[in-house]
């Protein structure tokens, strides 16, 4: 049969089963490319659609959760408040795999406070920012990640310092911080899989050009600009531990990070050495690139050994919603005892 020939992943699911509704975003929007990379990463990683929870805020970017894994629950929160909703859901059911998508306005403007506190709590989720430096859905105003001096389609010039989401995340002690570019699947897919394997908040700051309002000279988030200035910091070779894969990469110059699920992430240094376990080095490399007007991409920082919120709160493995009266109420004896104490 035809179906017999359909390729499937280790869960026996075809790649199509990781697709979602047709996109309603602009043709050529960077967000659409990211969606495709997400589909591939989730498929390759063999994520169970039923355990996936797709979280987002409000914006063109936040619509993207509708465009992959239609069979997963999704929560489109209010603008900038996805972190709080995700935190609540994450403690309610630590079994779920939370995949959050936000925009730069959603994260760095209205949502900045919640974003910082999500990192502080190290909520176990992937937090992907589709970063285009503008408010796409409201037609192109600057966001807080718009670079100083970049020119808006309508002609206005941004007067304010940009907020570097990756740098901020590293400074706040996030346990996984990477940056990539929507057009660079070869880099983004492995980063996504590494994020999926990470326990704690994995921040992916993905430059994602808004072709309608931000893809013009002057914008430092446009295809042109990024392609010209992008600087590949590392390539990633991700080895899932489920099955051994022979890969022939040159030995020696490799830093190997062991993720909590036992899978290994091996980083190949390009051009210069970067140790992704060195916070200050990460800040330095971001800063240096910025000084040169470059965008540094790759895995900037990772600490596989942090406790996520559920661990810190010592929550049971059973989802809290599944606990019953016997597990949640005082026994009649305890109850009587307590009231006597209170008497």
């Amino acid at each position, binding site marked *: 049969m035809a179906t017999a020939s359909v390729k499937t992943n280790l869960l026996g699911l075809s790649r199509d089963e990781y697709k979602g509704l047709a996109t309603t975003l602009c043709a050529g929007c960077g967000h659409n490319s990211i969606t495709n990379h997400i589909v591939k990463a989730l498929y390759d990683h063999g994520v169970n659609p039923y355990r996936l929870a797709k979280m987002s805020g409000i914006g063109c970017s936040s619509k993207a959760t509708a465009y992959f894994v239609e069979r997963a629950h999704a929560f489109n929160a209010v603008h900038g408040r996805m972190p709080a909703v995700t935190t609540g859901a994450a403690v309610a059911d630590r079994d779920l795999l939370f995949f959050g998508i936000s925009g730069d306005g959603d994260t760095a403007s209205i949502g900045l406070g919640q974003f910082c506190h999500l990192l502080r709590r190290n909520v176990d989720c992937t937090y992907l920012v589709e970063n285009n430096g503008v408010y796409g859905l409201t037609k192109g105003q600057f966001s807080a990640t718009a670079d100083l001096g970049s020119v808006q389609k309508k002609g206005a010039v941004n007067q304010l310092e940009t907020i570097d989401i990756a740098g901020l995340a590293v400074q706040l002690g996030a346990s996984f911080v990477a940056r990539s570019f929507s057009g660079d699947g070869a880099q983004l897919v492995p980063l996504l899989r590494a994020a999926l394997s990470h326990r704690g908040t994995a921040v992916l700051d993905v430059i994602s050009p808004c072709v309608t309002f931000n893809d013009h000279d002057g914008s430092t988030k446009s295809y042109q600009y990024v392609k010209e200035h992008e600087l590949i910091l590392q390539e990633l070779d991700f080895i899932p531990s489920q099955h051994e894969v022979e890969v022939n990469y040159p030995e020696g110059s490799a830093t190997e990070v062991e993720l909590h699920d036992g899978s290994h992430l091996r980083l190949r240094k390009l051009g210069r050495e970067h140790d992704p376990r060195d916070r200050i080095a990460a800040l330095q490399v971001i800063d240096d690139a910025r000084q040169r007007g470059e965008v540094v991409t790759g895995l900037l920082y990772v600490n596989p050994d942090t406790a996520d919120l559920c661990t810190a709160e010592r929550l049971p493995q059973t989802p809290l919603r*599944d606990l019953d009266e016997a597990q949640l109420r005082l026994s009649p004896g305890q109850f009587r005892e307590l009231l006597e104490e209170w008497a």
Partner: protein
Amino acid sequence: MAEPGSVDLNLVASTVNGSGSQSANLVLTRALFAMGIPVSPKNLFPSNIEGLPTWFYLRANSAGYRAGRRRADLLVALDRATFAEDVKRLEPGGVLVYEEAFGVPEPGADHLHLYPVPFASLAKSAIPDPDLRKYLTNMIYVGVVAEILGIPDSALEDALLHQFRSKPNALSSNRQAIALGRDYFGTHLTKTDLLRVEPIDRTSGKLLLEGNQTAALGALMAGCTVLAWYPITPSSSLAEHLIGLADRYRVDPASGERRIATIQAEDELAAAGMVLGAGWAGARSMTTTSGPGISLMAEFIGLGYYAEIPGVFVDVQRVGPSTGLPTRTMQGDVSFAYTLSHGDTRHPVLIPGTVLECYEFMQWAFDLAEQLQTPIFVLSDLDLGMNLWMTDPLPYPTTGFDRGKVLHKDELDQMARFERYRDVDGDGVAWRTVPGTEHPLAAYFTRGSGHDEAARYTESDETYTRVIDRLARKLESGIEKLPPPLLEGGSAEVGIIAYGSSDPAVEEALDVLAVEGVAADYLRLRALPMAPSVADFVAAHERVYVVDQNRDGQMFQILQVELGPLLAARLRSVRHYDGLPLFAADLVDAIRPLESTRVGQSAVPLVGAGH
């Protein structure tokens, strides 16, 4: 005082906050309670940590009246700053115990029974350690008062044992301080007043509990598994009580696992989001806050309403607007909470009137949230939540949780299709699934934007209207599930409608009015939207006084709209909004003139502080 043992005493102790007067006040309270005398203590404390005036009101009433009284029969004045003002709070012929060093109070005080006591020097001589001294000085006043009122040592001993059960080595020093006061009065002063208390048996089997404490236990027994909160007076102690109970009863001794997540959010806005996230994922989640927090939750509450997500939102009300008087009580958020958020919204609101109801309504609220799949408000207030109230023991729950309409894998197996927002049962409540349900039909998309029955995005005018109409129907059909109003009496011409912490004052006012020849029936609202029986009550009475502890008569306004013009014409508004608890006299003084001279204007602003 009429029959033997009958007591109606209002004691006021004026001290400085942070001086430890709290425990002295509690010992006195418990001592009278131990004598079998019903007590209701109230703290009027400042929004400050140390060094400012604070007042303790203690009503001891053998008839069981729980409301406070504005004026004191016995004043203990230990704060020089407020001495002159405080003396004015005494009833004519009242008893004044005061620090001798303050000097004889202003003229006008000569009609009082004066008992000057050199508290400072007494303490100085007896208690070497300065910190301990500052603290124990308050205990000395307990001894003095005990001597004046005739409180036996046995009662004080009971109280001391209860108060210091966790720190027994503090017992003796406190005992001595009390003795010090007693002895001083005995040897240096002679009792000229007639105040006296005698043991009666009106408190056996009763407890003294705070509303925030019983609400916390209610939440625990309701199976709350997620608490997201941000500290704010007067709601913090509810969260802290719950955390304390959880530490004790929700931790697995073996694994150390905790069967509840208690998250201190970065603010109330985030707390509300966490509650919705957890509710969406199927957990029983709640937050507790006060006015400013409710304002910050407005946007999320609208999402919860439109996306139909369960959650319990407790508002322990304080005086607004804005920061207002954080340590004073009011019922100021009723109309705001009822239709919180932009657009057309309306939320079920539960209004407990007793500490017992604080316990019960929390359990009710968690069931309702999942039955109706919407945010539920529980409106308490500072008076109810942070003061001790005498109550019958809290009953152990007789029923299990009602988790509402949730579809699991096995049920989905039986179904051809699942649509999240389809009203299949005709009650306006659709079935939901939770994330993690291992079934191809289970998933749906939750959003605050336009959606159809299948939870698909839409901007269709017809679909929008259909969905928003169903939400209105859902709330209508939910009314019968809410706590019904309570009715007292029935045949009078005059009715009184009140809610929440106004109950004690109304109960007392009813008796006073009756004595004065004004018979009135009483309906206590316990939830919004309102049950049909409210209309029946109004229809059955000529004039109905609606008691609000807010300036604008918020419940009065809601009643006008929900009852319609015909019945609304019978309503009169009685308003109390000075931040003090409602006193019976305030009601009587407001209603009496209107009833004697049958002139009913429709609003009777009542500046409580005015008299």
